[in-house]
């Protein structure tokens, strides 16, 4: 339903915008209805930038994002408004997503004013209570309170309910549970699972590998704006192809196995670089796969270049480190 084709985003940085920062480089993937795709990356990998481009909160600099038959980048005015009827986002910080001056029902009223101006009061109430029902909230208990009177988990579920008021088919969930407590975050995750069963496509953006692994059918590992690895979640986590994925997995704190000793480079925290002996799977495979910049190693399991340079060439072959 949602397809990204070689999407690129360049930010102008520095004084007077003199230099450029390429936050997202030629990223291609798609999300099907009823599918949760986890977009996993560290800070600065461009994961939120991709989410914001899908939501048209940022301009797209290169490539196209298509939602069904529409080119998202070209939408304006009422067409964009109609797009938001079907594609919605929920963000990281539920506390700052609400205006503290108004009761939480205000966010619902805003949706009503923009999209359901001619709906009768009864029809609107029915819509609100259906959405609240989906997220397991009692309207009477939460709707007429102020944001500070509710917990983060309740606020986050309210925001998901807000997104569901429209005829939402696609949800961008950007770090929606990283600010929640362990005891409530799993409920919000399970809620995403319920929504998936209703046919929603969900892009679940996270830096937490265990959360991404829990809920998603497919996982995409981003590194410096490029896809390092993409595939069925069980394969990406079970048999990772890219050394970067392996490094991330080794860093995740687990509950049954303790970390080994740190290497000197990891200790220095200088940023990860593949070891010189690591072969480049992408450049070893001569036949390019169906997705630009990625080689298909197993069915639906793609891997990118092990150490791409700025111009896209392979850092491995260009400058072998001795």
């Amino acid at each position, binding site marked *: 339903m949602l397809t990204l084709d070689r999407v690129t985003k360049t930010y102008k940085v520095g004084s007077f915008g003199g230099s450029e920062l390429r936050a997202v480089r030629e990223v291609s993937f798609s999300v099907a209805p009823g599918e949760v795709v986890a977009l996993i990356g560290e800070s600065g990998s461009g994961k939120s930038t991709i989410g914001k481009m899908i939501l048209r909160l940022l301009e797209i600099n290169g490539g196209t994002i298509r939602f069904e038959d529409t080119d998202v980048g070209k939408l304006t005015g009422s067409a964009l408004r109609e797009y938001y009827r079907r594609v919605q986002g929920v963000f990281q910080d539920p506390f700052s997503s609400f205006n503290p001056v108004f009761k939480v029902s205000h966010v619902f009223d805003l949706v009503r004013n923009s999209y359901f101006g001619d709906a009768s009061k009864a029809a609107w109430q029915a819509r609100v209570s259906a959405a609240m029902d989906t997220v397991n909230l009692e309207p009477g208990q939460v709707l007429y309170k102020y944001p500070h009177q509710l917990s983060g988990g309740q606020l986050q579920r309210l925001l998901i309910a807000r997104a569901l008021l429209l005829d939402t088919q696609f949800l961008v969930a950007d770090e929606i549970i990283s600010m929640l407590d362990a005891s409530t975050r799993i409920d919000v995750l399970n809620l995403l699972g319920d929504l998936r069963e209703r046919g929603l496509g969900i892009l679940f953006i996270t830096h937490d590998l265990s959360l991404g692994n829990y809920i998603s059918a497919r996982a995409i590992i981003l590194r410096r704006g490029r896809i390092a690895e993409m595939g069925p979640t069980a394969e990406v986590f079970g048999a990772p192809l890219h050394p970067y994925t392996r490094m991330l997995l080794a*860093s995740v704190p*687990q509950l049954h196995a303790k970390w080994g000793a740190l290497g000197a480079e990891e200790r220095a925290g200088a940023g990860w670089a593949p070891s010189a002996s690591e072969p480049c799977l992408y450049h070893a495979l001569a036949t390019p796969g169906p997705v630009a910049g990625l080689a298909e190693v197993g069915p639906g399991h793609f891997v990118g270049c092990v150490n791409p340079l700025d111009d896209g060439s392979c850092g491995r072959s260009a400058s072998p480190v001795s």
Partner: protein
Amino acid sequence: MSLKVNDLRVYYRTLAGDVKALDGVTLEIADGEIVGLAGESGCGKTTLGNSLVRLDSRMKMVGGSVELDGQPLPVDDFEAMREHRWKRVSMIPQYAMSALNPTRKLGQMVREVLEARGVRYADVRPELERRLDLVGLAPAVLARYPIELSGGMKQRMVMVLSTLLDPSLLVADEVTSALDVSSQRAVAQLLQSFRDHGFVRSMIVVTHDVSILYQITDTLAIMYAGKLVEKGPTDEVMARPRHPYTRLLVSSLPEVGVRYDEERLSGIPGSPPSLLNPPQGCRFRDRCPLAFEKCVEEPPMRDVEPGHPVACWAVDATGAPA
């Protein structure tokens, strides 16, 4: 015995009354021990850490006592604590990245902080450089401004600075929460090595992330609504949690390898009680699946086995639920 906290009560003054954030916590920490404090937001874990180092004007110590290395620690006297702060007790605050003065080069800042404590910078400089090297920072960072460092580098700088005078007790509050998984691991393991090198004698690590605590702590203390509910050797508590709250908390954690499709985890229903007017008896009883009549009385901390006390009526001396 390095630290003895006896029945410590710290309340927050608010217009609505006193918030009993810490309501009778007794805790002992041995030399060389790393204790992890875990619990939901608002359970008092940060308050406990803060009150050992710096009680601010909103906080009021209502009862109890703190002893460090056999001498009383005047935690409720802000001025008297100046003598002890940084030299005997020190902390890495929750937002260590914003704890550095942006208008000073790091070396200059260290010099000013040291001289305010009557310590000559030149005397400490060789040791400072040695420790910077240990955490993977070049001495050249001392000539840089904080803005020139990455988040992980700033975090390491603050770690070195907090422990420069070899305090007996270090409180590390959510030091890994804002970091990427790879630097999270490096910082967590550095904390452990600070203890091993004897830079700090004992440590309290506060975080909501139980899996980090499992990796680096010797003892795990679980808090709920201003009280300790369970404390024991980390491996023991994680493998055989006894308190119903600990059990639910541990079982709600998704791990790499656990998938929504195969195993649906659940959170803890309900939310913690208000600490303005906490209920009589066990504070977890409204959410507890094992609650019975006895729970209206307050459960004492009883050893289910040596060194593993639990505050629950439903857990008898053999550790099995009654």
